[in-house]
């Protein structure tokens, strides 16, 4: 940690003798081509089990948490975004940004790998990452144009159904309202 900013220096440790790549936190990572990863994700989406991608997102979230000097909940959105987008970029998952649509927090992930048509692979990855960062059950539901609305996992299926029925992001936000947990 340096001045609250993410330090990408020395993030990867290349062990050419041992044939391994590790992050600075010790996790072993494997470099995959986009085509191979796309095939794997498409198969997982067909089977309805995107757990490996959600697990990969949790690993990214752990990297983010390790780089923060305080809990993410007390930091500004800009500070958290700086660390999240840096880790996402280091793993080759594109450019990440936050957007606010009313009370809804939306994640935009540009230039991400083309995995599956419905973008469920990226949604699983983002859900796992933000769940790890916030220590809450977070779902990121695709809403088109590489944007994912962040909602509670209990309403994720409903929001996904609205999108599949043709609702765009403004319409989806209009069909939601803030309700405090009882």
């Amino acid at each position, binding site marked *: 940690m340096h001045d609250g900013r993410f330090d990408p220096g020395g993030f990867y440790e290349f062990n050419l003798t041992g044939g391994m790549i590790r992050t600075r936190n010790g996790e072993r990572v494997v470099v995959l081509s986009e085509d191979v990863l796309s095939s794997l994700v498409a198969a997982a989406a067909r089977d309805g089990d995107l757990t490996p991608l959600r697990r990969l997102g949790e690993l990214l979230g752990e990297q983010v948490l390790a780089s923060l000097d305080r*809990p*993410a*909940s*007390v*930091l*500004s*959105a800009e*500070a*958290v975004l700086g660390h999240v987008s840096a880790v996402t970029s280091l793993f080759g998952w594109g450019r990440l940004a936050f957007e*606010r649509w009313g*009370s*809804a*927090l939306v994640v935009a992930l540009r230039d991400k790998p083309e995995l599956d048509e419905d973008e469920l692979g990226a949604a699983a990855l983002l859900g796992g990452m*933000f769940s790890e960062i*916030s220590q*809450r059950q*977070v779902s990121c539901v695709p809403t088109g144009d590489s944007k994912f*609305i*962040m*909602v*509670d996992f209990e*309403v994720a299926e*409903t929001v996904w159904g609205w999108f599949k029925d043709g609702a765009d992001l403004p319409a989806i936000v209009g*069909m*939601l*309202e*803030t*309700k*405090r*947990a009882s």
Partner: protein
Amino acid sequence: MTDREDRLRSLLDKVRAKRPGERETHAAEAVDRIRAGSGTMAAAQETPLSEPSTSPHVESPTRYSSQPPRVERPLSVEPRARSAQPPSRPAAAPSQSQRPASIRAQSVAPTGQPVVYATDQPDFPRPKTFGELLELTLSLRPR
């Protein structure tokens, strides 16, 4: 008539006979002087016309700009302060030393509002933390 009177008369006649010539001579000299003088004056008058570089038109903008600017004119819209003056008061405008002072007074304190109004800090809402934004979005439910 005595001899003496005759001599005096003859002398007077001689004098009368001589003076018209002298007058003509003096008049001719005077005419010559006047002509000479008028010729000089005419040359002096022709010089600026023949030399555009000394034309007064070139100096005109400088002269105009050196006149006092009419910045006092906006004061005519100030609320009745001057128009309410009695008509018996001289119509002459205030002196140059008074006009800028009134302009400055209007521009420095135009409304007379207390300075505290300008120094009050507005209450900007505190930016939400990431945790608060997350709490908001996770609280969304279908209508």
